[in-house]
């Protein structure tokens, strides 16, 4: 690759604009109608999952939910750009992408419900645990891809992070290792303009985040993160490059988090409502609906079918989270190491004794919980 080709183009790639109009691009083709319909269906599900989860927080069924409302084109684009055998390394904000890769919503919500640190089988779904310590998972993605490459597998690994996370040292080390070892990783940054309350201008003085790529020797690309067509095209190119042995890429999507950082956040403290409204006009669902309706691909019947599908997911989520899943205190000791040490055995015996005593003292008590003597 020529050095100049590592630099992002001067404009952000967009294939369908905010009004649903197709934009001609000399480099990227518009995905097929089927692909766009599938993406649209994904967006409808995604939006419903986001809003259902937020509602469940309000109802006290979930402890916390970092919503990707507004970023659904990135979430669905990331999930659809991968082949079934590929791997995704997501963050706390990427529950929708995780679900779009096949994880059951209820399993994805275990973390946010407080039942365990991660609720799905990462191997079965080829989705790493959602990472909380920022940028750390990017290195895991690199090591994972390294191992796959060494074994001659053609797995591609998609590693997600936010704009804020690009400031962490681990971001730097991950991109550098990836480029030096030329591993098949796509680094996909959802630049939603904020790291909690801190705006992008406090995160970087660079022309764009994609301009960091050349400093590692990989291509950097910018894409409209609210245009799923463009996201699919640009990520598709990066995935193909990685799969063909061309090494890693850095993709920056320009998007916006429409809600607060989490339910516990108060975004009125740090951003104007007018800004939020501006971004509402660039909604990823609306534009694709306009486009697909205009081309006739999206009929009312289809739209209803999609809505019904999304509603099904949402009601399954509600149902799954309506019951308090049983938790087993011994789990605290079960998984720390492959073989439990005598120290942990001893500590479990202590806790076991406390639990037994609680139950004996109050035999009516079915559910295990902390008691006071």
């Amino acid at each position, binding site marked *: 690759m020529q050095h100049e080709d590592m630099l992002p183009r001067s404009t952000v790639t967009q294939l369908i604009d905010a009004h649903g109009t197709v934009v001609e691009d000399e480099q990227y083709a518009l995905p097929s109608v089927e692909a766009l319909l599938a993406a649209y269906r994904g967006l409808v599900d995604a939006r419903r999952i986001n809003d259902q989860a937020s509602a469940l927080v309000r109802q006290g069924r979930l402890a916390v939910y970092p919503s990707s409302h507004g970023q659904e084109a990135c979430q669905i684009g990331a999930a659809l750009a991968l082949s079934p055998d590929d791997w995704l390394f997501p963050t706390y904000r990427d529950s929708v992408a995780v679900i779009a890769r096949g994880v059951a919503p209820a399993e994805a919500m275990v973390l946010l419900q407080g039942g365990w640190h991660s609720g799905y089988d990462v191997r079965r779904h080829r989705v790493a645990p959602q990472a909380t310590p920022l940028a750390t998972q990017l290195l895991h993605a690199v090591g994972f891809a390294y191992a796959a490459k060494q074994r001659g597998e053609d797995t591609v690994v998609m590693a997600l992070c936010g704009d804020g996370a690009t400031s962490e040292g681990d971001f730097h080390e991950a991109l550098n290792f990836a480029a030096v070892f030329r591993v098949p990783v796509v680094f996909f940054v959802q630049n939603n303009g904020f790291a909690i309350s801190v705006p992008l201008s406090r995160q970087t003085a660079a022309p764009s985040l994609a301009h960091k790529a050349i400093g590692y020797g990989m291509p950097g690309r910018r894409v409209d993160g609210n245009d799923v067509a463009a996201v699919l095209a640009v990520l598709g190119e990066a995935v193909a490059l990685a799969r063909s042995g061309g090494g890693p890429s850095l993709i920056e999507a320009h998007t916006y988090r429409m809600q607060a950082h989490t339910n516990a956040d108060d975004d009125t403290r740090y951003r104007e409502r007018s800004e939020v409204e501006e971004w509402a006009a660039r909604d990823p669902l609306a534009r694709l609906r306009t486009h697909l309706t205009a081309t006739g691909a999206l009929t009312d019947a289809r739209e209803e079918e999609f809505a019904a599908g999304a509603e099904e997911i949402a009601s399954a989520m509600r149902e799954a989270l309506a019951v308090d899943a049983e*938790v087993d205190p011994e789990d605290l000791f079960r998984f720390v190491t492959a073989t439990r040490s005598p120290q942990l055995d001893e*500590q479990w015996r202590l806790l076991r004794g406390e639990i037994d005593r609680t139950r004996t003292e109050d035999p009516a008590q079915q559910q295990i919980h902390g008691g006071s003597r």
Partner: protein
Amino acid sequence: MTIAHDDIRVAGEVAPVATLSMAAALNLALADAIEADTAVVVFGEDVGALGGVFRITDGLTARFGEDRCFDTPLAESGIVGTAVGMAMNGMRPVVELQFDAFALPAFEQIVSHVAKMGNRTRGVVRMPLVIRIPFGGGIGGVEHHCDSSEAYYAHTPGLTVISPSTPQDAYSMLRAAIASPDPVIFLEPKKLYWTKGEVDTSIVAEIGTARVAREGTDVTLLAYAASVPLALEAAEVASAEGRSVQVIDIRSLSPFDDATVTAAVRATGRAVVIAEAPGYSSVASEIQARVFERCFEYLEAPVRRVTGFDTPFAPPKLEHWYLPDVDRVLDAIDSLHWEDES
């Protein structure tokens, strides 16, 4: 993750003595310190417009401007490393690291520079900086949000490690930390952020001293941070059962107040150490070992400890099983070879 909260916004509007939450007391201490010394600067992630995810820096930027309280890029080693340079050049940085586990990216800067720069330069370059870290559990936080990492810091020569358990100490100890010529790891027990108490801003704390939180003659509970109210609660229950329980708030984890603690345990002859962190190679083991060694001839029973398990911190739904609770403390007290029993 940000955590639900009441707003504080008390900066600059409080009388010398007032009833404040610990969060408000910390906020006031920062405001007063900024006002008292132009060298003091507060920075970190989300400490500006947002006022911190726990609102401890609430209103500081609005009141004092971006020069005195500001947001940085999201990089903890960057925050601490920059603070080192600022401290080398006349400033008194007070940085906030958002949650205990998110201090870890800064660990090399803390251990290799914050702790050692004064020693390295034979005292020519001191490190008058404060690293504030909300720590501990009890708020139902998800993984990485509830750790207690004080052992990492207490084990590191050159660092002062302190943690308040009352709004008064929160105020006075933070002021003392900011005034200190040495680097201070200031651990804020987030479980206690919203507990209220009287704060007299004229009280000056002396780093390195423990505080007798409750008098008692039969047994001494040695605790710090969120374990202090727990110890007081256990003492109350035990006293109803006829035991006179003394509670000492260690509050200065390093340096350690041997004089107070040794005298206390020698007087009662029995002791239990309480802390949330995993017990293995911990501050609790240090306290246990010291007390054992210094009070050996005076002990009626082995010193016990009640700590978190040697497992990763529990997910929210299992947290109550993980954390030391009143029953566990009472069991430990019961085990101290009482003559009135068996």
